[in-house]
């Protein structure tokens, strides 16, 4: 038997809008069945996963803080993926951004008077470091034809080990009782909090600003237009005169910069010092977020909140219901598979051709 996919002629805007919602509902049903099979109440799991984190101010802040780096990184990745360029190394660009931006914070430790230039310089250096790190696979691809998928991914491990070395070695706090971490940043090197006594820091606002900016760039500028055309039809992009090489460099620079900014925001916002590890895999989760958000910045913002919500809810479920953390990961993967599947089904009609082989 062969399975044929034929494009649907009339695509309705309603189905386009509904398909991610239907996919989410389907994921809830399947997730509920799994929870039931584990011998817990699906209703209680639903409350713990999706309602509890939204019911208290502190957990709402946690959701936002977790969503911010995901949204930032995924927005940058959307530029790459729209142009059919596969940057898998946002995790590395995130780490490098955090390391080099944080280095400024370490170096500025103890300067009296809390100078105003420290924080902007940290953000600038972090963003720039992420961009430069992102340009390495881009240059290798453009000049030597090396697959960016492999190089960007492998550079993640280079970045992680570099941070690990720096945090344990040269940047370690000399007065820190040999703990593998740097000095705690001064206030001047800390992203300000948005709420008195809360954890919500200015990195969240930065993320929202970048999402809005990215929406404008993709929709309203010639560069955004070029990215969209390359993705939709590479031949037409060449006809338009949008050079492959320049665009490859540009989208890697954008996504590297976004990941770098996310990295330094995390270090200067939530963590407040350099540690051997600064990311629970944001750069990889952001790949899921980018596709869940269908590569549009606004969609990505929503997707980042959903993933952050399930992650926080998953932590709650671990404590309250003794459900494994893997269940959360499985649910996130399931959600992605179903959203992509629903998208495919809204675009194509499936036909089974009996008796034929592919």
């Amino acid at each position, binding site marked *: 038997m062969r399975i044929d996919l034929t494009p649907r002629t009339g695509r309705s805007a309603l189905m386009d809008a509904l398909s991610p919602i239907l996919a989410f509902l389907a994921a809830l049903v399947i997730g509920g069945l799994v929870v039931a099979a584990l011998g817990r109440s699906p209703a209680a799991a639903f409350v713990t996963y999706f309602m509890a984190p939204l019911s208290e101010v502190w957990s709402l802040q946690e959701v936002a803080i977790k969503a911010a780096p995901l949204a930032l990184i995924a927005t940058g990745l959307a530029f790459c993926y729209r142009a059919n360029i596969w940057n898998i190394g946002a995790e590395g660009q995130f780490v490098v951004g955090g390391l080099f931006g944080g280095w400024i914070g370490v170096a500025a430790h103890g300067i009296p008077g809390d100078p105003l230039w420290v924080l902007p310089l940290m953000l600038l250096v972090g963003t720039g470091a992420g961009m430069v790190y992102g340009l390495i696979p881009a240059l290798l691809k453009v000049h030597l034809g090396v697959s960016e998928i492999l190089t960007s991914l492998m550079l993640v491990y280079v970045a992680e080990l570099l941070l690990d070395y720096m945090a344990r070695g040269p940047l370690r706090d000399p007065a820190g009782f040999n703990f593998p971490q740097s000095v705690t940043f001064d206030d001047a090197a800390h992203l300000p909090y948005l709420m008195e006594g809360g954890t919500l820091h200015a990195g969240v606002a930065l993320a929202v600003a970048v999402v809005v900016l990215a929406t404008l760039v993709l929709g*309203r*500028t*010639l560069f955004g237009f070029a990215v969209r055309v390359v993705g939709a039809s590479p031949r*037409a992009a060449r*006809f338009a005169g949008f050079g492959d090489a320049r665009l490859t460099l540009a989208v890697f620079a954008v996504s590297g910069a976004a990941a770098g900014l996310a990295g330094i925001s995390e270090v200067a916002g939530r963590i407040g010092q350099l540690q051997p590890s600064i990311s629970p895999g944001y750069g990889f989760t952001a790949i899921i977020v980018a596709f869940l958000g269908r590569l549009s910045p606004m969609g990505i913002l929503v997707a980042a909140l959903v993933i952050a919500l399930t992650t926080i809810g998953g932590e709650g479920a671990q404590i309250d219901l003794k459900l494994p953390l893997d269940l959360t990961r499985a649910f996130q993967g399931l959600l992605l598979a179903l959203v992509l599947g629903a998208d495919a089904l809204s675009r194509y009609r499936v036909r089974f051709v009996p*008796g034929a082989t592919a």
Partner: protein
Amino acid sequence: MAPVVPPARTEGPTPLFGAYGIVKRFGAFTANDGVDLEIRAGEIHALLGENGAGKSTLMKILYGLLEPTEGVVTHRGDVVRLAHPETARALGIGMVFQHFSLCENLTVAENIALVMPKGLGGRALKARIAAVGTTYGLHLDPDRPVWSLSAGERQRIEIIRCLLQDPKLVILDEPTSVLTPGEAELLFTVLERLRDEGRALLYISHRLDEVRRLCSRATILRGGRVVGACDPRAETARSLAALMVGAQVGAVTAPAGVATGPERLVLSGLTLPAPGLHGTALDGISLSVRGGEIVGLAGIAGNGQAELFDALSGETLAPEPGMVRFDGVESGRLGITARRRGGAGFVPEERNGHGAVPTLSLSANAILSRHATARLSRFGVLRRAAAKALARDVVAAFDVRKAGPDPAAGTLSGGNLQKYLMGREILAEPGILVVNQPTWGVDALAAAHIRQALLDLAARGAAVLVISQDLDELFAITGRIAVLHHGTLSPAAPAAETTREALGLRMGGAAPAEDPVTGAPDHAREAAHAH
């Protein structure tokens, strides 16, 4: 000219395979319209025709890839239904495709094992490959990976795959299109051997000299109908060409007279390697187009039209700047945007996915080629209102029929989208316009509109180069015509002194003995061997 025998039902022995009254419609388009074909054992039967004549459709019907709308296929006189290639293979029909389906990373033997019945592999298969190789002179090392093989060697894999199933009928689709002349000679030896063993071969081609050398019978298709059947050995290349392109040898009038404007588009010895296995290399192409004239490039698809278009537009850069000159400026190393800024316009053959992005709106597609020349962006920010205004102007000037104010390009009919793409370039008042297949798949009314727009543009002083397979079109609008064959270009001859016959001969790769493109009487039979 030798008499043309109409396709008659069998007089002699029952044919091995027959197709009678084959009609195949795709929507409103009829690809095959009452085609009859009989193939006998021990013959190489040629299926001749231009692109779009319906050869591929008929071949796919015989191989079970398509089912005919009407008509029947017979095997030894019995009606059979070929619903699937497996059915066709079971009846002993094998096929060697023009585009190979091989896995680059696998070896020769592995590629062959892929299509063989399960359980046959390893040493037994290698032994059979070696046996077939020795019998037919198809030498191949079974352990070589495919990526290291030439086009001719890859084709041998396809042929061996086919022969291992011991076919009674082998269909070959343009088998020499990817081969060097030496490789083609080797292939002919193999084919003659297969014929002598009593197998039937259906040889699809538009190369007249090959067909005359190899085939004992030919069926000629034009516009989906059989227009003749003959013994190609008794024909001249000229008479075959006339059948293929239509025999009307009519006087034509050059629309613009002799152009006296300045040379605006000049190609000098443009040479480019083939872009891939199935691409065509361009070999020393020289041409000059003056302001005020339309020059036509005739030729059968796949002879370098796409490659030449890309080299003209700047999507492929020439090795030397001086090989392409626009208004005296050496443009060979300039990209397409710089060439547009210099006053050139381009309309490619493929509308969806090259000239336009089907999922984007008409105004976005205006930005696609006019972002630099119509100032549709300012400091990198798109001027969407200006793009919409430009799209509206094009729609009004070229009578583009569409639904909604700014619909996606893909929702327009082929003719209307082509009018839009033409208008998009012509409203820029280009000094040089290069158009590939301006009216391909366009209805008659829209085609007339487009041709008139091209004539008007030339009358305003532009140099227009039209690449087209449609000879009627070239005769209707061009002042001079050159023929592209195998990546080489014949000298452009005045259309008024040229005949369809002479063009057809050149398109088939046979050079007339005397003046290259004029229709002066010549001895085409000898000339056919010149290539």
